């Protein structure tokens, strides 16, 4: 039971990241590896702001402002010019990877390579009739769950959300109707930065952070997105939670060293058996 709950909370955080990835991937087709850079930067920024003594609310606000700005600047400086040049998806991927490397190294140079924790001392725990949860776990679960619900509601019910779904469905058609794709894309990157930062801070609160974990965690989010189904936003959420649960079970039954292997084997399985993902639009993709 414990493991299940832990897995669920981990899964919710993966879901948040998967949303962050699929927002960009669905709407622009860019393999947004640089998301890992944002994931890495966020806790470091928060850490520094708190250390400077701005107070926690302002520190959180500043962190969000900077990461969202950073995420948007990826689009503005890198992906949009490449899109204008009609660069291929592979070039977009490579440049995203390049940005990831650059930012990670800058973080490592400024803040050093070692791991850190955001909170001091032992976390407060709560006991629910035998089920012990730490405060940061509870925060992680509740906050990420509420953000996911708000996001899905926004996506399905509001005008801007529907516009977004349209963007992921057929960007050229949308621009022909007269919507400004540039803004929407920029917005997608901003939103992705926001969700990534939420997940990053919540994770950092729970287990600490270091400059080199970003790529790994984003790869898991990517796996969740692909398994979940391209073009869908609900699929990644479900798969994120699923992956979290499966990963925690793997840790329990075998060892933490096989976590990533199982994750990727799951990806291989899905790509061969059901390449369109759990929740899919019609048609098979990337199949000759």
């Amino acid at each position, binding site marked *: 039971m414990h493991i299940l709950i832990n897995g669920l909370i981990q899964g919710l955080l993966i879901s948040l990241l998967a949303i962050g990835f699929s927002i960009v991937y669905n709407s622009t087709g860019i393999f947004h590896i640089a998301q890992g850079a944002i994931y890495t930067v966020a806790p470091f920024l928060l850490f520094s702001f708190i250390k400077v003594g701005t107070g926690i609310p302002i520190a959180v606000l500043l962190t969000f402002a900077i990461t969202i700005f950073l995420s948007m600047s990826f689009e503005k400086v890198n992906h949009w010019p*490449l899109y204008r040049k009609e660069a291929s998806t*592979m070039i977009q991927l490579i*440049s995203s990877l390049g940005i990831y*490397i650059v930012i990670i190294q800058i973080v490592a*140079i400024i803040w050093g390579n070692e791991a850190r924790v955001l909170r001091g001392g032992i976390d407060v725990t709560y006991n629910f009739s035998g089920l012990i949860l730490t405060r940061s776990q509870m925060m992680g679960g509740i906050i990420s769950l509420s953000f996911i619900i708000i996001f899905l509601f926004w996506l399905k019910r509001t005008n801007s959300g529907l516009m977004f779904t349209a963007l992921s469905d057929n960007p050229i058609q949308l621009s022909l109707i007269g919507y400004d794709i540039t803004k929407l894309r920029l917005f997608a990157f901003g939103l992705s930065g926001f969700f990534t930062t939420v997940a990053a801070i919540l994770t950092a609160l729970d287990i600490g952070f270091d400059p080199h974990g970003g790529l790994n965690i984003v790869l898991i989010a990517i796996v969740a997105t692909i398994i979940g189904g391209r073009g869908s936003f609900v699929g990644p959420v479900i798969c994120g939670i699923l992956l979290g649960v499966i990963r925690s079970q793997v840790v329990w039954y075998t060892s933490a060293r096989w976590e990533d292997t199982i994750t990727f084997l799951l990806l291989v399985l899905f790509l061969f058996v059901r390449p369109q993902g759990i929740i899919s639009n019609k048609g098979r993709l990337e199949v000759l």
Partner: protein
Amino acid sequence: MNYILHLLIYLDIYIIITMSLNLLVGYGGLFQLAHAAYYGIGAYTTALLMVALGWGFIPAIICSIIITGCLSLLVSIPAWRFRSDYFVMLSLAVQVTIYSLLYNWTGLTKGPFGITGIPKPTILGYKIDTLPNMFILSTVIAIICGVILYVLLRSPWGKALKAMRDDELAARGLGKNTRLFKLQAFLIACSMVALAGGLYATYVSYIDPTSFTLDESILMLSMVIVGGTGNFRGPIVGALILIAIPEILRFVHIPDAFAANIRLLIYGLLIVTMAHFRPQGLAGKYRFK
């Protein structure tokens, strides 16, 4: 002088790697991130055969080439069906799986402790244990690999491979068996990188899984991308530049703690700049699709 020889040996090894990766990325259009894993398998099989079973260098290398060639099916079969993003993810899956096998299969690979005391290569009773000899060996192997690739890519097979890269459906329409081409391309590239791995293992005489991580795959890929894809000069230029950068950095006095970070930072910047201003790489010919 010894230091320069050491660098040149590394350069030879990396030229083999980048040439073989260029066969896939530049000629086959098969963008993959599992090359370090195959490099690792090559290094590990050679090392294990030589250390645990006491085989000679040549049989061990041949055996490791065969094993890696068989394992190349792991990426070539997915390549039949998947392209671009999906194929990158699949090759990533192979990379992660093989890496964690190397890391966790402690019974065979000794896990994170690595394999120590790998003997220097002996060829026809002649022991190659000095730096100049090792340099000659690695250069000879690199040249052999280069010649093989040159002949192959000039042949109709190479032309068909390029045709497949440019338009797979058209190539199939003309009756080319693209699945077979992909299989062969991966077979050749992976065996070649296994050779490089064996060379590395015997040269360094100690290997552990951290030399074969995803980062290493990314480094190999960035060498190919920076140097250029789709022709012969490209990968050599790429290997040269990315090996030269850390050496040039030695002359600029930066603190040791940052040296590795600065190096990677420059790699990242190079990749981004290349993507924007010269997608075919410095000396390359082919732009990604």
